[in-house]
């Protein structure tokens, strides 16, 4: 759905991906589509409950059994949606890696850090123990952990928050995956550490040529690391654009309000404008645009049907009947 | 905030297993009280019909002295029900009181009580009860004394913990600030809110009491022959396991069924009281 040069096949492609709750049918994610090329960094931003984490978990097949996924997911040209557990297990770690939000919860408390990293290698490679140890220290150095040989023998509770997230990264990167999914990787960290980890992610992406999908609720994080970004609301993508343009000239009213709600300086000059209301309940979603009840530009047409996706002239697109654009673009 | 009003408000929403358990227990009580009236003596011997398998005249078979096991089991019902009660009630009262006092007043009282608890807990319960009964002499009465001496510990621990929690809640502080005497605070305000946990524990402790009592009967230290206490009947039947397994099997089944009845009742009671005790 986003226009991109057709010469290179995308590394990751989602087409009409949806996630529903098995019993009751509440919809958490609906009709999500985007593509990602090798080495690209793509951000997904939205409030909590917007379905961004769920989407990303659907890619790697880590949804809880109470949820059902639908739609097409292609990795390196092959369909992986609904793939068998064995195939997914082979893919995880080696092709697609993932880091999660809470680094303390993400690490096994009773296993040394080094063993947790080496375990990924054991199950994907044919390295012998010595080579595994070497690779472990190598990847620990890569993520910026000091004294890897000594640190490898420690337990997660002996490390700081930043160190733990680096370990989680090391685990995900041990087998050099081509795609890294990061679900709010810095949210649980101190502000000073956040910056370090983001810089690390950026460096790693460039040096390893790895694609990155970064999920966050923080637009500041997006600005730092991502090339393109999709804005999710109520389980759908409402806008997708290159980062610079999203910040300078957002098309969707929700994006505009998100930007306005970021503190940008002294409050007297830039008063905070929180968005009134709350996101739609997945169990009772309105027939029309999910944002309509909170949107200052909404009309009666907005509440009837979900707005269709319209491609932007440059790249990306949006789903809105009344976008904030100087002139109306051509319909897709 | 007494327990009576909270039950009143639950009304029709009584948990299923509570109702079922209560019904079963009522049935047991009826059996225990009325059964013996309808049957012959449990000691009636009939040597011509010794060691007979279950039949119409002897639904549970007979033992080596020709006594009907069915008759004996029914007569024994009230003994084992009493065992359940008398092993739990003294321990419940002593332990809850000590626990309440220890939790409320703290200080020396608490230290002394908790030290006693630590020591009592160190012993395997059955072993110390056996030891005390050995010293005092076998018999149900001495068994009740022995259990009371050691069994209060669990109740003390529970009520002390609950008291410590409840003490800090506002209504207790308010009552104290109003200048109410300690006794009033304890009895009217703390006790009704602290006791439900102990009651729940007691309902499952009854089962353990019955097991303990019948175990002691089995070992010859509890009820004495010719009492038709179930553990005693099982012990008698042991040597006939190959020839007449029904002698031991049926009383055992009775114990299991009684335990299940109490278990259902206790679980139901816990379900009923738990939402109210969690503030």
């Amino acid at each position: 759905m986003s226009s991109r040069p057709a010469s290179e096949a995308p590394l990751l492609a989602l087409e009409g991906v949806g996630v529903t709750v098995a019993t009751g049918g509440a919809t958490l994610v609906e009709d999500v589509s985007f593509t990602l090329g090798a080495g690209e960094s793509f951000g997904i931003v939205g409030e909590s409950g917007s379905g961004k984490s769920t989407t990303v978990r659907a890619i790697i097949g880590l949804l809880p059994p109470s949820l059902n996924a639908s739609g097409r997911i292609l990795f390196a040209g092959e369909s992986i949606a609904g793939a068998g557990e064995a195939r997914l297990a082979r893919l995880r770690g080696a092709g697609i890696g993932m880091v999660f939000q809470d680094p303390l919860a993400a690490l096994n408390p009773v296993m040394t850090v080094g063993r947790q990293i080496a375990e990924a290698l054991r199950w994907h490679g044919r390295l012998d123990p010595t080579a595994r140890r070497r690779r472990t220290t190598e990847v620990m150095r890569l993520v910026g952990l000091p004294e890897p040989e000594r640190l490898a023998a420690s337990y997660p509770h002996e490390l700081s928050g930043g160190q733990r997230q680096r370990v989680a990264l090391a685990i995900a990167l041990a087998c050099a995956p081509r795609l890294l999914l990061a679900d709010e990787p810095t949210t649980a960290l101190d502000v000073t550490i956040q910056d370090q980890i983001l810089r690390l992610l950026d460096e790693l992406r460039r040096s390893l040529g790895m694609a990155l999908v970064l999920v966050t609720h923080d637009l500041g994080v997006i600005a730092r690391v991502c090339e393109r970004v999709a804005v999710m609301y109520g389980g759908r993508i409402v806008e997708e654009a290159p980062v610079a343009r999203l910040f300078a000239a957002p098309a969707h009213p929700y994006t505009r309000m998100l930007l306005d709600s970021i503190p940008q300086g002294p409050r007297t000059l830039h008063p905070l404008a929180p968005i009134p209301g709350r996101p739609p309940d997945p169990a009772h979603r309105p027939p029309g645009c999910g944002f309509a009840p909170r949107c200052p530009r909404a009309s009666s047409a907005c509440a009837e049907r979900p707005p269709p996706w319209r491609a932007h002239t440059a790249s990306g697109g949006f789903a809105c009947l009344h976008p904030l654009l100087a002139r109306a673009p051509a319909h897709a | 905030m007494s327990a009576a009003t909270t039950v009143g408000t639950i009304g029709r929403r009584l948990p299923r297993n509570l109702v079922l358990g209560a019904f079963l227990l009522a049935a047991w009580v009826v059996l225990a009280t009325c059964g013996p009236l309808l049957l012959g003596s449990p000691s009636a011997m009939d040597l011509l019909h010794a060691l007979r398998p279950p039949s119409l005249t002897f639904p549970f078979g007979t033992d080596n002295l020709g006594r009907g096991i069915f008759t004996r089991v029914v007569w024994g019902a009230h003994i084992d029900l009493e065992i359940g009660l008398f092993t739990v009630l003294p321990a419940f009262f002593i332990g809850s009181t000590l626990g309440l006092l220890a939790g409320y007043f703290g200080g020396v009282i608490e230290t002394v009580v908790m030290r006693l608890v630590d020591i009592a807990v160190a012993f395997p319960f059955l072993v110390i009860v056996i030891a005390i009964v050995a010293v005092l002499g076998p018999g149900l009465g001495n068994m009740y004394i022995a259990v009371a001496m050691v069994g209060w510990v669990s109740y003390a621990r529970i009520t002390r913990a609950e008291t410590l929690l409840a003490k800090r809640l506002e209504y207790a502080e308010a009552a104290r600030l109003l200048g109410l005497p300690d006794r009033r605070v304890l009895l009217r305000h703390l006790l009704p809110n602290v006791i439900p946990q102990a009651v729940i524990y007691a309902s499952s402790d009854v089962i353990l009491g019955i097991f303990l009592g019948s175990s002691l009967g089995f070992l010859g230290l509890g009820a004495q022959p010719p009492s038709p206490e179930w553990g005693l009947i099982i012990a008698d039947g042991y040597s006939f396991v190959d020839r007449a397994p029904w002698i031991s099997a049926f009383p055992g089944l009775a114990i299991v069924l009684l335990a299940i009845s109490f278990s259902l009742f206790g679980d139901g009671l816990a379900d009923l009281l738990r939402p109210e005790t969690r503030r």
Partner: protein
Amino acid sequence: MIRYILRRLVMLVPVAVGITMVVFLLVRLIPGDPARTLLGIHATPELVAAMRAHLGLDRPLWVQYLIFVRHLAAGDFGHSYYYGEAISQLVLTHLGPTLVLIAYSVVLTLVIALPAGLLAAVRRDQAADHLVRIGAVVGVGLPSYWIGFMLILLLAVTIPIFPVAGYGTGFPSHLFDLFLPALTIAINLAPLVLRALRASLMEALASGYIDTARAKGLPRRVVLLGHALPNAIVPAVTVLGLNIGYLVGSTVIVETVFAVPGLGQLMINSIGTRDYPVIQAVTLVLGVLVVLVNLATDLMQLLLDPRVRREVA
């Protein structure tokens, strides 16, 4: 960490003292002259006088207690007239079978509880889970002597595989003969461990590191056994430790049922023969045994959970 172990051993002292006091007072509960009571039917005036001197019965009670402790420290548990030997000797010969039975029961408990708990947690709310939980409820609700009886009936009489009683000679024979007794205890104990394991497994499986493990590409079985289980086992072991008192108590009944020549049987027999010194000694030994096993369980926790290690360092 050594300091922690030493500290725990030191904390045992008041409990041990308490145990000795209780045991000491036990015999004093019997009305009449303690010396005469202890000698039982062998009481002659000379022996009674000697015993009175030995126990210091004309001294104040607390001095008697100290004398009692002094004897204990020297390994002198007294003399059994019924068996005709020093009680310390008696206790030693009967200690072996009881220890083997306890260890065997623990092993069988784990053998039953671990797979069952795993199954119930993984197949949560499905048929297997319900079956396991019903089994657990039944298992706790059966008195041990009845379980013993049913096992004898089924596996020793109806289908004669195992012996009805006894201990056998030689270690392999011990293991075979003790299977039914150990199983009896395990049937009572396993449900408790199983329930704790199921609960802690469900909690572990909902933790974040399970996501990480799966995101690494580990097969489901490895995630369950290599990540969830090592974390879940600690509370289950704790529950096992909490019920050691119950376990030791059960051995008394089980030894009687299956005629295993252990401490429990010694105690019951001695009650019949009014051999009070033996009763005293066995109570003491069993009490100390429970305390030691509790300590061992705490140390196991240290071994299994590195976070506990750090807390005590």
